[in-house]
């Protein structure tokens, strides 16, 4: 019918396009990843990138439509890009005013294990010296509830929290009493060796979840986590069974820590997690704090060795999924949430502004407040830089407006520092002031010299390279990126 126009009628005359803000980083030879201001990505060849920037990209180029659709450029055929980008940017930052959501309570430093990589514990029976008192607990609960967050999570740590279960109970009961219309959830990070029916019953009645350590199959786990006069692995595994039976599968999770001995066994460790019926694994690197440095377990492996371990582990997990087994790697999925959605995965280490204090806080057994668990570990090593107050002596204002905290957040702001400012992965990464203070005595850190940066950079590049050209992995990763998936 002559009343219909052709498609060319609706294409604009080939005028110039406008670039929208974006950053780019090399992915591999001839391949670049671009990220727009809302953290959305596209991969192009170098030649395309150059043409794009020099305003030489023709509208017939195979990437042109995608680049316009994904808001890397805009032209006179559309003008909604700016508003959409603004909406998405707002969404990405919308969780910030919720402020501190994770509140860790170190209820005791005492522990009956003696893991070489442990940051903090004390093998001791001296309760007075190393247990959190009722007064400290009560003041900590008040501070936690002072957060504007509509929902907070209280995580019990140690040492071994079950060694001071009375205070755990006190905190749960008091928090529930005082919470008004806040939602409060609870989790105990425990090695499960001291799990009793009483503990399980209390957890069931009060919806307390359990998080435990499982480093791999028995031999590896016990080597990493020696328990004088005992078998840590057996305790963990039978503990997991009991918790599942009483609290349910969704209420128990496990974390692994990588040591030098773990590095050659990624598949075995993952198999152990499968065996215990866990839905995923968090491949965590060894952090450079606490006993780890003292016993030299940290210096033993570096970025490359850990990356090799991570890749083997991730590939094994992908293979499992290809066979129809639903299993996730959680560090990857945390990053993927930032790649595929504008939601925050709520993972403190991958936040900018840094999550210290404003997303997480830790109340030590003696009332000292630290803005992250790593900061506490640094203090145990003698560096009290991040000591920002005491629950028994300081007010909420004094603690959260402590200049040391505010300066650290402001100075480490990733968008404001060299290299991060231009990095295509900045939206997926984090500021990490505590790590850099610990390693370089510098809140910002020189990123080229930073193991944090190197490690993450390798992971980011690996993730994106893996998705390009493998539709199965892209589909899997897209699913992993969903919050609550």
């Amino acid at each position: 019918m002559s009343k219909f126009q052709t498609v060319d009628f609706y294409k604009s005359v080939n005028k110039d396009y406008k670039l929208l803000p974006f950053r780019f980083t090399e992915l591999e030879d001839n391949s670049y990843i671009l990220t727009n201001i809302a953290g959305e990505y596209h991969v192009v060849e170098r030649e395309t990138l150059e043409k794009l920037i020099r305003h030489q990209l023709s509208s017939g180029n195979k990437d042109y439509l995608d680049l316009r659709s994904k808001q890397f450029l805009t032209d006179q055929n559309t003008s909604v890009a700016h508003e959409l980008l603004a909406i998405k940017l707002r969404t990405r930052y919308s969780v910030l005013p919720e402020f501190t959501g994770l509140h860790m309570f170190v209820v005791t430093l005492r522990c009956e294990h003696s893991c070489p990589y442990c940051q903090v514990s004390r093998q001791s029976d001296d309760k007075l010296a190393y247990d959190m008192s009722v007064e400290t607990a009560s003041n900590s609960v008040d501070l936690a509830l002072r957060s504007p967050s509509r929902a907070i999570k209280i995580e019990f740590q140690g040492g071994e929290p079950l060694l001071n279960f009375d205070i755990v109970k006190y905190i749960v009961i008091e928090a529930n009493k005082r919470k008004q219309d806040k939602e409060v959830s609870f989790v105990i990070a425990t090695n499960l060796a001291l799990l009793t029916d009483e503990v399980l019953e209390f957890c069931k009645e009060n919806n307390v979840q359990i998080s435990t350590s499982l480093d791999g199959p028995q031999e590896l786990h016990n080597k990493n986590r020696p328990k004088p006069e005992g078998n840590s692995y057996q305790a963990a595994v039978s503990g997991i069974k009991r918790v599942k039976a009483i609290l349910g599968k969704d209420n128990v999770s496990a974390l692994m820590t990588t040591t030098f001995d773990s590095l050659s066994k990624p598949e075995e460790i993952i198999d152990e997690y499968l065996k215990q019926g866990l839905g995923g694994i968090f491949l965590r690197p060894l952090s450079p704090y606490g006993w780890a440095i003292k016993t030299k377990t940290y210096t033993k492996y570096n970025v490359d060795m850990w990356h090799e371990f991570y890749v083997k582990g991730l590939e094994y997990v992908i293979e499992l999924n290809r066979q129809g087994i639903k299993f996730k790697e959680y560090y990857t999925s945390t990053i993927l949430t930032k790649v595929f959605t504008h939601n925050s995965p709520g993972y403190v280490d991958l936040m900018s502004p840094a999550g210290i204090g404003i997303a997480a806080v830790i109340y030590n057994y003696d009332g000292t407040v630290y803005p992250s668990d790593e900061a506490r570990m640094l203090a145990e090593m003698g560096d009290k830089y991040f000591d920002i107050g005491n629950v028994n002596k300081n007010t909420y204002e004094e603690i959260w407006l402590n200049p040391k905290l505010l300066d650290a957040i402001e100075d480490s702001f990733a968008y404001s520092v060299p290299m991060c400012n231009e990095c295509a992965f900045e939206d997926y990464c984090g500021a990490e002031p505590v790590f850099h203070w610990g390693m370089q005595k510098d809140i910002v850190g020189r990123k080229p010299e930073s193991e944090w940066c190197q490690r993450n950079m390798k992971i980011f590049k690996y993730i994106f390279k893996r998705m390009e050209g493998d539709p199965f992995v892209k589909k899997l990763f897209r699913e992993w990126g969903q919050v609550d998936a």
Partner: protein
Amino acid sequence: MVQIAFDANLYSADHLKKAAYKFIDKFSFQVAKKGPELVCDLELNPNIGNDAEDYYINQFKKEVLDQELRDKLKKETEAVRNLILAHTFSKTGLISDE
């Protein structure tokens, strides 16, 4: 004693001082403006061996670059950063409404 000159158009005394401070346990530092240049006099601490001198000078130059870039970026991105941090603290009751 080592002398290093920096182009005063590209670097400020503040950058040099901040960088030098990080090496206060390695060398002492003086800076003076001479024409278009900022000239730094670095005197190695007695406990630093001469073979380490090149290493620390190198590190110092890197640190100067670092400081200059950090300063520039911090200023350029100030508006965005302040917006985001204000937004972060907006519900805490810790900042006063103006």
